[in-house]
């Protein structure tokens, strides 16, 4: 890939790369984003966008409003996120509501293997983080 992924080429490539039943792929309205749903991770959804040289993959964790002592959690997230392979914590606003998100940014020229690994790790990390936070 020299000119980088587009949502269309990425969807086709991922359809061949994932094992059957591992993930379902859906192009979102407008064709600017791809939704990857992981049945084995409780139907977790990862959204993928491509713009210029960047490929972004993001999954929502939980609403910031539902977090007890958000400032503590956010400091904690900043301290631990280097121990989460390839994934980064963020706060994003969806329809006026703040959500914690876990995301990964890749080069639009990343290999298919890199993208698949990013998506699998993101899904695994997101559920692990939700479980650890629920237990805390």
């Amino acid at each position: 890939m020299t000119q980088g992924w587009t949502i269309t080429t990425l969807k086709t490539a991922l359809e061949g790369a994932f094992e059957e039943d591992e993930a379902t792929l859906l192009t979102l309205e407008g064709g600017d984003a791809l939704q990857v749903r992981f049945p084995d991770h409780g139907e977790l959804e990862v959204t993928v966008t491509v713009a210029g040289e960047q490929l972004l993959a993001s999954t929502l964790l939980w609403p910031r409003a539902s977090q007890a002592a958000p400032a503590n959690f956010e400091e904690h997230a900043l301290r631990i996120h280097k121990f989460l392979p390839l994934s980064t914590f963020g706060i994003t606003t969806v329809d006026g509501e703040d959500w914690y998100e876990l995301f990964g940014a890749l080069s639009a020229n990343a290999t298919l293997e890199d993208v698949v690994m990013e998506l699998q790790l993101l899904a695994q990390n997101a559920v692990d983080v939700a479980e650890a936070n629920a237990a805390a």
Partner: protein
Amino acid sequence: MSFLKKLFTAAKGAVTEAGEAAADANAIRILDQELRDAETANGKAKDQLAAIMGKKKIAEQKLEGLRADYDRRMAQVRAALDKGEEDLARDVAKAVSEIERQGREEEGVIATYDETIASLRSAVRDNDRKIETIRRETETVKANEAMVKAQAAVAAEHAGSNSSLGSAAESLKRIKERQEAQKARIAAADELALDGGSLDDRLAQAGIADQSDTSADDILALARGGGEPKKLGQD
């Protein structure tokens, strides 16, 4: 001011209630302005560069002319000396001296132009890098915008269809529910395997009481008989 500094300033100044992404709303506007500034600066620097290079060319041509004059006049000095025309030779030599002075002056002017050209070229390179950075930052912001739009669309779809969001917290809930359901299924399967009940249940049904169970009546009987009830954990 750099893009990041502007973002931090924007976030600090704005009311960030409900995480109103002040940064995102301003980012494209800030970047567009920066891009215009950098492009304008580059246009000016390139115009200046062209003008200075034109002037340098003229100065070089003038220097070339002076060098030709020098050679010509020096030949004349030698010719005059050869003919014993000392006074004439001296007058021409004075002219040569003046040509030399002008030549040094012109060399100085050219050196100054070279310095200006070097610094303008460096400014153009800086601006080219800046334009490249802004372009990349714009793409990053646009990638994020596309992401926010897509997530909002997904959220709206979930709200419309009454299904819960594919967030990590919701997914964890579903995983737990699935695990519970699976546990229940396994337990039910175990019971079925035991043909309708546990071993103790079947023994009780058959009137065969578990010998390890001491009933209240047994204890009372023991107490009335003056004996000690057996101690816990001992037979």
